[in-house]
């Protein structure tokens, strides 16, 4: 059977996971780095299908390779066999990975809020359309509206414009004052301020609105028309694509399966990025939404700690504290306004896996009852989409992860990749 082992196993090869793998390997540990995506980089450093990966990702990966980090791409950790022993699905079959210590760097996903028509093909998550465009979706010449909330909207709009899309407008639900205050606080972070200024420069010519959000998407079979509310006015657009999401939510399923404490949706960690479970560390967006700078710092601390270094370097510690203050201001500036709860109508589908409508859910008193009665959140996505929405709409707790985290064949659950040579040639050896 295929069993791998390493001193430190890092799950997730985004900025946090790459930084963790490098720090652990540079501290002398033998490191395995797994990611379900075909290439390292995570969300922000996702490699375009026809181009080089971004420079910071290349640089970290070069250091990782130099220290013998073994990357397992297309390898999704779907379960936990016993303490510090993970089960993963790879194209070669299922593998068991034993770890001296684990670093969880599983990142975040986008919060989607249901509104009439949001299930139409052509409606994407904001980072989602960016990811799909980087993997070959043609966006040049397409008319696209960017809506929802958070700085990600600006990054996505600028990306789409660079790809030749016609960005019709950016609609941010937060108030102009809140965003202006947040922008002002960037004076404390000169690096981020420079990036924000560059981004705004790129967006010149694209209408931007605050206190604005989508209310209705329409079309026969595909998205054709979108209505947005700006203050007390409605505007309609003919368009090809909508890119829409309302902030990010930490990915905590694997941490929960391992028994780590999760509070307010994020994995709880201490100064060394230790979770509440011995020898399990976490870093990056999984521990709270803070952006790429904080992901890299936390990853470096977690990787070194997982390899046995005692205290975080004081300079990293200071930088992390500053990033955490930034994260708190970010959450405050872009918190969701209560009016968004009225977007979802009784016949709006909330659970896309099981086609459960809002009206069917609100008959029930609590989340458990509603989920059991309607199967809401029990499809293959395990509530990753409807969970964060219902958390906002109804205050329902996020659904608990179930084994396996992703659908795998019954064979993968019980057996392993039998052909050792086949899987060994698949895994890119470093």
């Amino acid at each position, binding site marked *: 059977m295929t069993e791998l082992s390493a001193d430190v196993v890092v799950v997730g090869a985004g900025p946090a996971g790459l930084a963790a793998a490098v720090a652990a390997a540079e501290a002398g540990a033998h490191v395995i780095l797994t990611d379900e995506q075909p290439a390292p980089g995570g969300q922000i450093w996702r490699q375009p299908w*026809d181009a080089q990966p971004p420079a910071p990702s290349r640089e970290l990966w070069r250091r990782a390779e130099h220290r013998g980090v073994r990357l397992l791409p297309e390898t999704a950790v779907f379960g936990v066999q016993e303490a510090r022993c993970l089960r993963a699905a790879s194209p070669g079959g299922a593998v068991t990975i034993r770890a001296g210590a684990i670093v969880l760097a599983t990142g975040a996903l986008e919060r989607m809020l249901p509104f009439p028509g949001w299930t139409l093909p052509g409606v994407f998550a904001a980072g989602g*359309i960016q*990811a799909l465009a980087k993997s*070959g*979706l043609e966006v040049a010449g397409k008319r696209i509206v960017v809506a929802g909330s958070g700085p990600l909207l600006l990054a996505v709009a600028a990306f789409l414009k660079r790809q030749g899309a016609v960005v019709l407008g950016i609609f941010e639900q937060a108030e102009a004052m809140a965003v202006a205050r947040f922008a002002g606080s960037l004076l404390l972070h000169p690096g981020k301020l420079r990036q924000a200024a560059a981004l705004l420069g790129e967006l010149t010519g694209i209408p931007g609105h605050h206190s604005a959000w989508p209310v209705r998407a329409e079309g026969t079979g595909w998205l054709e028309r979108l209505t947005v509310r700006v203050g007390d006015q409605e505007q309609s657009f003919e368009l090809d694509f909508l890119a829409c999401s309302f902030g990010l939510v930490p990915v905590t399923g694997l941490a929960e399966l391992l028994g780590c404490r999760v509070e307010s949706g994020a994995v709880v960690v201490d100064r060394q990025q230790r979770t509440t479970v011995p020898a399990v560390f976490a870093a990056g967006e999984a521990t709270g939404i803070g952006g790429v700078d904080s992901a890299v710092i936390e990853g470096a601390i977690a990787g070194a700690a997982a390899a046995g270094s005692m205290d975080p370097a004081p300079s990293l510690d200071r930088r992390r504290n500053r990033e955490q203050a930034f994260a708190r201001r970010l959450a405050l500036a872009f918190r969701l306004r209560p009016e968004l709860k009225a977007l979802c109508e009784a016949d709006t589908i909330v659970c*896309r*896996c099981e*086609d459960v409508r809002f009206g069917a859910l609100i008959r029930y008193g609590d989340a458990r009852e509603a989920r059991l009665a309607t199967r809401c959140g029990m*499809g293959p996505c395990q509530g990753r989409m409807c969970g964060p929405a219902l958390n906002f709409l109804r205050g329902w707790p996020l659904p608990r992860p179930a084994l396996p985290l992703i659908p795998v064949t019954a064979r993968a659950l019980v057996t392993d990749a039998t052909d050792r040579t086949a899987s060994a040639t698949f895994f890119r050896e470093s």
Partner: protein
Amino acid sequence: MPEMVRLVVDGLELQVPAGITVAAALLNRRLVARRSVGGEPRAPLCGMGSCFECRATVDGRPHTRTCMVRVRNGLDVRTDD
């Protein structure tokens, strides 16, 4: 011009650039990945493996997230998932 590969979707042959994902290939032809429980057409949403709206049967493997699979010559995709 990038190298092209042949993809078979529900028996229909498509020539698509090597290296793109199956999800992108379907979207570029406005082909939907699946029908929902209630019969609605659905297409990829998250692009990163969490929503499962892009799932299809790929080379006989059901429930495959097509946003995570790169096209290969002769890859067989069925949107009956």
